[in-house]
């Protein structure tokens, strides 16, 4: 390890805790508090990766977590930002995007084929001749992309949490601290969100007077306020509608709702554009200062500083004071105004070359980093002399200005625009309840940032207190800080002046794309891929606008900017995928089913037993369950059926309008089939309505339909405004269907105070009473075509009753049966399951439910549409079919009915009937195929054609004698 600078340099590192780690298989040592990149820089290693397209050596320019060049691979995590991720003991870090290592990247040869990778090569190269893509794809998949996914990784816990505050302050630099303090002083609940591990921003690394107490004072002021909550190492990645912020911190995504937001997001140091401006060892002034003050790293032995303003001189002074030899300060401005730092630098005898620029950088002959620069005279906007002075250096510090970090503000609806002929966007307007301060709002000094922060805080407080006179949110930027030269973009005849380092986009590529007609900034972005890398244009948008404006003889303001979208910084998938919520509904008998060996299946949100027994005995289990119901007695948990109480003077009127049949003649104690169609006449659900009292109906709904049906019924009521109450009591009642010839005996054995004789309780009766001491609603209905009762006990007593029925039925051969057996049983009876045998177009006449329409009713939902559809004539009908050939393939649901090579319908339900000992089913067929006795052809699995005969429904017990006994 090289010697570090002595304190106070290195505020973030703990020199007593060395940290050993590996990079590219070599051992390195850093200190606790180092980032991966700072620890490597301390050892003179600048190169972190190879570039995406041309495999050029790259490092970090800004040391602020923005760029693709600093993405590295950890053992089980790809694309880690090396310049912000803390180094940990034993960490094994690999460079990304190399074939065979960083030093000898074989894919670097790709750089030699650069002329074959022109702008838009994604769209041009791989399509002709036909089929060539298949060849290219393999190569591209191998070389493209960044990190590698470790498929043997250990899962981590990610989750989400909501947070609320009066004011969220994004960014804890000078402006953010001042804003938070100002709001906190007013007693507001403030959330201060800082992406670095400590508060302070520029104040923690910028050049200040040694006696300056600003940072300590601000921190102390904020810490003293209990109403200010501080989140550090927390990144705001999105600013959505109504001040809803996404903030990622560790493995948690915070969803923050703020009444007002103050953006103090600071700025991004911009690169200069010249030949080989991508070499490792070329860093921003802020990066050099971070390395010195945060990590105690001397960034180089001999540096050149390229600047367009006073901040380059500050960096030069910092470097010189920390042991770096500053070869020259190269100032692009012809007549630099005498800034305070420039004056100091001049006084200390620094060599200053004004009106000059770096024309190109040269690679070190030994190492993957900068070795020197060619400095020449600026001859005009974007032009410099070919010949000049060669300067050796191992560090080039670039101070090409700072762009406001306005991405989040732009997402919220703030407008940025460069003024006049400038290239730097300036904040023009803010949406309601949004404020900005500091560099993001155009401040160029700490004093300005503090004043703006204070002002924004007071403005937000006034806004939230409802006082009309909210202070002006946008501070006027002093004219003196306007850039005085064109943006430092110097195209070179030999190229390699990168506008976008993430995506390897050069000046020429932008110009070519423009020449090809991609003049709109959004199209230019997509075609050239400029701004599409991890930095999302933060380091390239201004240069792109400058190049475009120059090529079009226009202004950056006219060129415009691309749309900002969240997430504004790369975000781990875990944060999005982490702990979601997926409610599950259990019937009261859930535990019993599982204990009894049921295979559970999902039905909407519910869990239901499919059948009881091991999966390898599925078919036998289902057949046994079917036969138990037909020959003895079976029990099925139908608690998942929807249940609605319709009560009030207009209860009948409501049913008459909402459902298709008429209930006017339904007496208390009776049930009726209740079919529901929508306004288009499409069958949407069915159930049974039981009249419990003069103005009280209990209506069931299908398992799948209940959840949508309740809002629908309430929507009708919202329009009809009838004197009726509709209550969803689905979960309040369990439901047990006991069916089979022995059903009555089981109930009687258990003890019931309801007379069950066919006279006292005939088919379709509805009764209430006590069964085994439990208050139940008893409906004598069934779906399976045997003597059956649907028992609706209170949910809390359902399991007890179920167990009692099982015990009482043991002597009668009772068996629980599941959904699969029920499907077979109901199919044998020819009953339609809405949504299985119907689709989004099915109207009642197509499925022979015309009898369920109250034709004489003046109105029901769907009536008019059904009439129109009926007049048009049927285009298909649902029929029952049986396959006479018992050795033929059993068709599956969804198999097509074909005739002369044309599709005339499809199978909706299919089963092997154990009772009939043949394959049966329901299918849509053409109307002229619907006659009983017609032979239809079904295209079964593997294209085998199966002949089936249309038969009369129901298949089983056609006279319906068994359910009426």
């Amino acid at each position: 390890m090289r010697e570090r600078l002595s304190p106070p340099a290195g505020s973030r590192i703990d020199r007593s805790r060395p940290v050993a780690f590996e990079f590219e298989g070599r051992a390195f040592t850093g200190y606790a508090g180092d980032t991966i990149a700072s620890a490597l820089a301390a050892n003179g290693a600048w190169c972190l990766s190879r570039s995406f397209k041309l495999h050029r050596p790259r490092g970090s320019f800004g040391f602020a977590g923005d760029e693709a060049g600093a993405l590295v691979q950890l053992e089980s995590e790809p694309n880690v930002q090396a310049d912000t991720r803390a180094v940990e003991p034993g960490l094994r870090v690999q460079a990304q995007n190399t074939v065979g290592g960083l030093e000898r990247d074989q894919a670097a040869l790709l750089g030699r084929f650069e002329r074959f990778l022109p702008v838009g090569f994604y769209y041009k190269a791989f399509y002709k001749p036909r089929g060539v893509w298949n060849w290219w794809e393999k190569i591209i998949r191998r070389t493209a992309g960044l990190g590698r996914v470790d498929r043997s990784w250990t899962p981590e816990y990610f989750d989400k949490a909501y947070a609320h505050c009066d004011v969220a302050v994004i960014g804890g630099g000078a402006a953010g601290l001042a804003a938070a303090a100002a709001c906190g002083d007013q007693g507001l609940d403030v959330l201060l969100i800082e992406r670095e591990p400590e508060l302070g921003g520029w104040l923690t690394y910028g050049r200040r007077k040694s006696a300056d107490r600003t940072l300590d004072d601000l921190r102390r002021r904020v810490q003293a306020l209990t109403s200010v909550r501080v989140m550090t190492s927390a990144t705001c990645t999105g600013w959505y509608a109504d001040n809803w912020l996404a903030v990622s911190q560790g493995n948690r995504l915070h969803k923050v709702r703020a009444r007002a937001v103050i953006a103090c997001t600071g700025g991004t140091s911009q690169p200069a554009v010249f030949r080989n401006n991508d070499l490792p060892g070329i860093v921003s002034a802020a990066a050099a200062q971070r390395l010195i003050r945060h990590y105690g790293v001397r960034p180089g032995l001999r540096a050149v500083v390229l600047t367009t303003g006073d901040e380059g001189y500050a960096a030069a002074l910092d470097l010189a004071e920390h042991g770096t030899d500053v070869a020259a300060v190269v100032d692009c401005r012809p007549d630099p105004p005498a800034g305070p730092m420039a004056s100091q630098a001049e006084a200390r005898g620094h060599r200053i070359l004004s009106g000059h620029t770096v024309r190109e950088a040269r690679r070190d002959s030994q190492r993957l980093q900068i070795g020197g620069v060619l400095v020449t005279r600026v001859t005009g906007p974007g032009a410099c002399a070919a010949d000049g002075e060669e300067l050796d250096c191992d560090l080039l510090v670039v101070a090409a200005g700072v762009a406001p970090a306005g991405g989040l503000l732009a997402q919220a609806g703030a407008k940025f625009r460069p003024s006049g002929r400038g290239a730097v966007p300036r904040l023009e307007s803010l949406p309601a309840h949004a404020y900005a301060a500091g560099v993001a709002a155009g401040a160029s000094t700490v004093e300005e940032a503090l004043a703006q922060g204070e002002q924004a805080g007071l403005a937000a407080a006034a806004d939230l207190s409802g006082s009309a006179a909210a202070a002006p949110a946008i501070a006027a930027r002093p004219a003196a800080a306007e850039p005085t030269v064109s943006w430092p973009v110097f195209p070179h005849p030999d190229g390699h002046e990168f506008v976008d380092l993430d995506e390897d986009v050069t000046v020429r590529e932008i110009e070519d794309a423009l020449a090809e007609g991609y003049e709109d900034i959004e199209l230019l972005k997509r075609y050239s891929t400029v701004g599409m890398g991890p930095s999302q244009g933060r380091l390239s948008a201004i240069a792109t606008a400058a190049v475009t404006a120059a090529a079009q003889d226009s202004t950056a303001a006219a060129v415009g900017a691309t749309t900002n979208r969240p997430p504004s910084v790369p975000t781990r998938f875990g944060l999005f995928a982490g702990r979601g919520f997926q409610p599950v509904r259990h019937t009261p008998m859930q535990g019993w089913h599982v204990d009894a060996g049921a295979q559970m299946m999902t039905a909407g949100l519910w869990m239901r037993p499919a059948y009881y027994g091991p999966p390898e005995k599925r078919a036998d289990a289902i057949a046994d369950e079917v036969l138990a119901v037909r020959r003895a007695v079976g029990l099925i948990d139908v608690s998942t059926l929807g249940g609605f109480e319709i009560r009030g003077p207009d209860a009948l009127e409501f049913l008459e309008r909402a459902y298709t049949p008429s209930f006017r003649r339904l007496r208390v104690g009776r049930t009726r089939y209740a079919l529901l169609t929508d306004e288009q006449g499409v069958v949407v659900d069915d159930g049974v309505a039981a009249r419990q009292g003069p103005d009280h109906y209990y209506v069931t709904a299908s398992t799948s339909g209940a959840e949508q049906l309740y809002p629908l019924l309430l929507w009708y009521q919202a329009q009809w405004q009838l004197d009726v109450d509709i209550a969803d009591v689905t979960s309040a009642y369990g439901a047990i269907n006991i069916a089979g010839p022995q059903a009555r005996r089981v109930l009687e054995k258990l003890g019931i105070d309801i007379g069950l004789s066919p006279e006292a309780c005939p088919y379709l009766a509805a009764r209430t009473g006590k069964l085994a001491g439990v208050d139940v609603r008893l409906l004598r209905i069934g779906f399976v075509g045997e003597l059956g009762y649907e028992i609706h006990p209170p949910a809390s007593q359902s399991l007890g009753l179920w167990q009692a029925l099982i015990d009482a039925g043991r002597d009668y051969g009772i068996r629980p049966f599941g959904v699969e057996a029920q499907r077979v049983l109901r199919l044998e009876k020819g009953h339609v399951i809405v949504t299985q045998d119907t689709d989004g177009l099915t109207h009642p006449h197509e499925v022979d439910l015309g009898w369920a329409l109250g034709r004489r009713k003046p109105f029901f939902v769907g009536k008019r549409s059904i009439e129109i559809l009926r007049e048009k004539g049927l285009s298909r009908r649902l029929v029952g079919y049986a396959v006479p050939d018992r050795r033929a393939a059993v068709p599956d649901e969804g198999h097509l009915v074909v005739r002369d090579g044309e599709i005339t319908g499809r199978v909706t339900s299919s089963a092997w009937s154990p009772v009939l000992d043949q394959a049966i089913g329901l299918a849509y067929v053409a109307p002229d195929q619907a006659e009983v006795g017609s032979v239809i052809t079904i295209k079964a699995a593997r294209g085998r054609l199966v002949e089936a005969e249309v038969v009369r429904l129901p298949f089983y017990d056609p006279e319906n004698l068994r359910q009426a006994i």
Partner: protein
Amino acid sequence: MKIMPCPLNGPRNIQEFTCGGEVVAPPDPDRADAAAWADYLFLHHNAAGIVREWWYHVPTSFWFIADRNTVTDEIVRTFLPRELFGADARPDHP
């Protein structure tokens, strides 16, 4: 996430709601011809500007009506259905 001012529950995340589409007065089903009826069922206005929509607060099973600007996504006003469908506003079929 957008905030919906619910007349029953106050301002809530839009995630708690579902939109029930535009409030459209059905034509008289007995008098409308098939074309007018199909127009009502299938053709939606999709206007740019302030539209009147049904909204449903799922946790309370509560329907209400919102006037919303489809250009700015601003919710101008929310109110109870009773205001439009009062006792006198029952459809004209007994």
